[in-house]
């Protein structure tokens, strides 16, 4: 890793993560379970795994290449079936629409299904500021909300927490009895949340897939909190970014399987909800109102970049996180934003700007495990390389419009650092070339380094803080050769 690109925040965060034995144990536990589940999952698919992946990629390419058409079709179908569609350019617009709607309905309590997009736009903050309580109902999200933290994984928000942590949290914040029995903890949460579901005025969810041809949103889960949030309250709001579109109902046969197998090794998740518009009769069960917020928030920029467009194919399964040797050691919080892991390292630079996230594309050994496991065959390593090139070539000039903190202050210092770093790098490579091109210079340099190492030790910034520099051999191979052979 090139240390000149590491911002203080990231280094601090990952070092803290590496030195946290509890986090390391939690991560090891997750990795063990997910890697054991993977081969079984792939074997239980209804079709050949590779064939499914190829088809998924094909569908996504087609959908994204014609996104305007399918989005329009989707919206018309939602409206035809009694739903409302709001087109939001950015987070502020989406939050304003939702808080205005909530206020207009006299809402006090919103129950939320797990939604990464709502984390991205910081919807809970906006609701709170508008005087509305936003309660997370997915158990993992409920836990991190109580702890005042961000989720540390796309699907398993609380994997960094032990049962002891959860027990302490429940006792401290909710006055529950102190128990570390996991079924008991789940049942305590269930009891509390059932009352809140019944009292809630609005249910807010994300969207896993939006089917254009039928105007249907598809939501998957294991717990039932999404079904609760979209059945009991009078109003349901679903937030989706533009790339969630798939063209046809039949496409679900590929995506539902790939998502449940890749995300949690399950042949089928416990509940899949397919929602199209709103109920026909007022006396039927279910919400009276259905709203879909279609959100850009920087995706149209991503779309415009052909080298990075495929990052929009992501179905948020989290498999790349589970397989990444970096994520496996540092966990999600070290990445510093909503989306961690390999996909996060590609999304964050595009959504909040290269300048603030320039460490992330370099936090990878390019091993390609993410690419191998990705159900939609997204070539993450290729995009990481592309982002590295952009960052090196000073393309951090392109500030993403969604970033709300000015990059100007960072720019000139960063550029200076960059230039110093570049010069140092060039000099280092020139020196290396000189040494390697001349046998005499090589011998002399090696002998000198060996002496320096014996007397003072050898240090290479960034490398030897966590590795030992192997000792130069004494006598060296060439010295032995000269003695024995010549």
């Amino acid at each position: 890793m090139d240390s000149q690109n590491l911002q203080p925040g990231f280094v601090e965060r990952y070092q803290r993560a590496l030195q946290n034995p509890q986090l390391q144990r939690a991560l090891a536990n997750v990795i063990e379970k997910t890697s054991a589940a993977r081969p079984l999952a792939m074997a239980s698919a209804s079709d050949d795994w590779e064939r499914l992946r190829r088809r998924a990629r094909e569908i996504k390419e087609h959908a994204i290449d014609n996104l305007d058409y399918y989005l329009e079709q989707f919206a018309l179908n939602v409206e035809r079936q009694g739903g409302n569609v709001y087109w939001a350019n950015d987070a502020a617009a989406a939050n304003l629409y939702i808080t205005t709607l909530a206020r207009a309905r006299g809402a006090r309590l919103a129950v939320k299904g797990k939604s990464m997009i709502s984390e991205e736009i910081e919807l809970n903050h906006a609701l709170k500021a508008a005087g509305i309580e936003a309660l997370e109902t997915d158990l993992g999200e409920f836990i991190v909300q109580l702890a005042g933290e961000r989720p540390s994984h796309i699907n398993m928000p609380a994997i960094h927490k032990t049962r002891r942590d959860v027990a302490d949290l429940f006792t401290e914040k909710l006055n529950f009895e102190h128990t570390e029995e996991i079924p008991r903890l789940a049942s305590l949460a269930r009891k509390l949340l059932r009352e809140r579901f019944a009292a809630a005025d609005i249910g807010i969810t994300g969207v896993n897939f939006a089917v254009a041809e039928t105007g249907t949103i598809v939501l998957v889960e294991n717990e039932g909190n999404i079904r609760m949030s979209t059945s009991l309250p009078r109003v349901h709001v679903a937030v989706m970014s533009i790339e969630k579109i798939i063209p046809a109902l039949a496409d679900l046969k590929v995506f539902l399987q790939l998502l449940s197998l890749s995300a949690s090794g399950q042949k089928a998740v416990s509940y899949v909800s397919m929602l199209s518009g709103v109920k026909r009769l007022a006396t039927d069960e279910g919400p009276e109102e259905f709203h879909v917020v279609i959100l850009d928030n920087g995706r149209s920029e991503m779309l415009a970049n052909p080298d990075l467009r495929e990052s929009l194919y992501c179905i948020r399964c989290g498999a790349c996180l589970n397989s990444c040797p970096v994520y496996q050691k540092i966990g999600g919080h070290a990445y510093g934003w909503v989306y961690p892991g390999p996909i996060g390292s590609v999304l964050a630079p595009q959504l909040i700007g290269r300048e603030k996230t320039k460490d992330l594309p370099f936090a990878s050994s390019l091993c390609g495990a993410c690419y191998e496991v990705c159900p939609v065959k997204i070539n993450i390593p290729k995009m990481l390389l592309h982002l590295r090139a952009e960052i090196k070539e000073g393309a951090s000039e392109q500030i993403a419009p969604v970033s709300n903190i000015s990059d100007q202050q960072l720019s000139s210092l960063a550029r200076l650092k960059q230039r110093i770093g570049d010069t140092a790098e060039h000099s280092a490579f020139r020196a290396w070339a000189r040494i390697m091109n001349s046998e005499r210079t090589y011998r002399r340099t090696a002998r000198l380094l060996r002496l320096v190492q014996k007397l003072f030790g050898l240090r290479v910034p960034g490398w030897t803080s966590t590795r030992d520099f192997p000792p130069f051999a004494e006598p060296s191979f060439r010295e032995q050769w000269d003695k024995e052979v010549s």
Partner: protein
Amino acid sequence: MSKEDLLNRIRAAVGRTASSTAPTPLAPFDFPPANLNQQSLVERFILELERVGGHVVLVHSSEEIEAYVKSLLPLHKDPVVAVSDSTSACEPGIRECLENPTVRMISPRDLVQVEAPADNYKNALIQADLGITSCDYAIADSGTLVLISSREQQQMISLVPVVHLCLLDASRLVENLSELLLELQKFFDRKDETPHRITLITGPSRTADIEQTVAIGVHGPTELHVLIFGLQ
């Protein structure tokens, strides 16, 4: 206008315009069929659902249904049972054991009451020990039940009570998700009466959010029982 702005940005990004022609859909894609007979479908369904913690029993008479329903009623309190308005095929068996003064029955008819029907229905369901529904389809290769809300009110009854009992007509079994979606397509082709909610249920509610350890019954039912009838 937000909509046009957004769509125009997308068009510019992908090289299309407002007057671009509709894209040619992709060629169809199908799983290899296995062509199972009803017996094999039933066997597969039982295998898959039991694997994820569901209970499945074959029934041949309304007496058997009655006995099973009775076995699910709590002993330590007066039972509260919700029955959807579509369990018509097996009504005899269910009616018998619910025609009991200690059993409080909730049904979607309660939704058409005059006073605060939705709230009362909700609160009543939260007290329910057992919810009985039928299903529209079932998927054999994953042990999945399919509930389509067209005319029947089954969604909350299959979700809120602690135990969910589902009556499955064996003729409604399909092999896999691909086949199911073909069936669902027919519902959506009737443009004016599309089902606003379709739910796929596979096993009881679960979570692995704490230390990756599975806990059953988080928000949805803790137990799922399926009675299969109508076998040839």
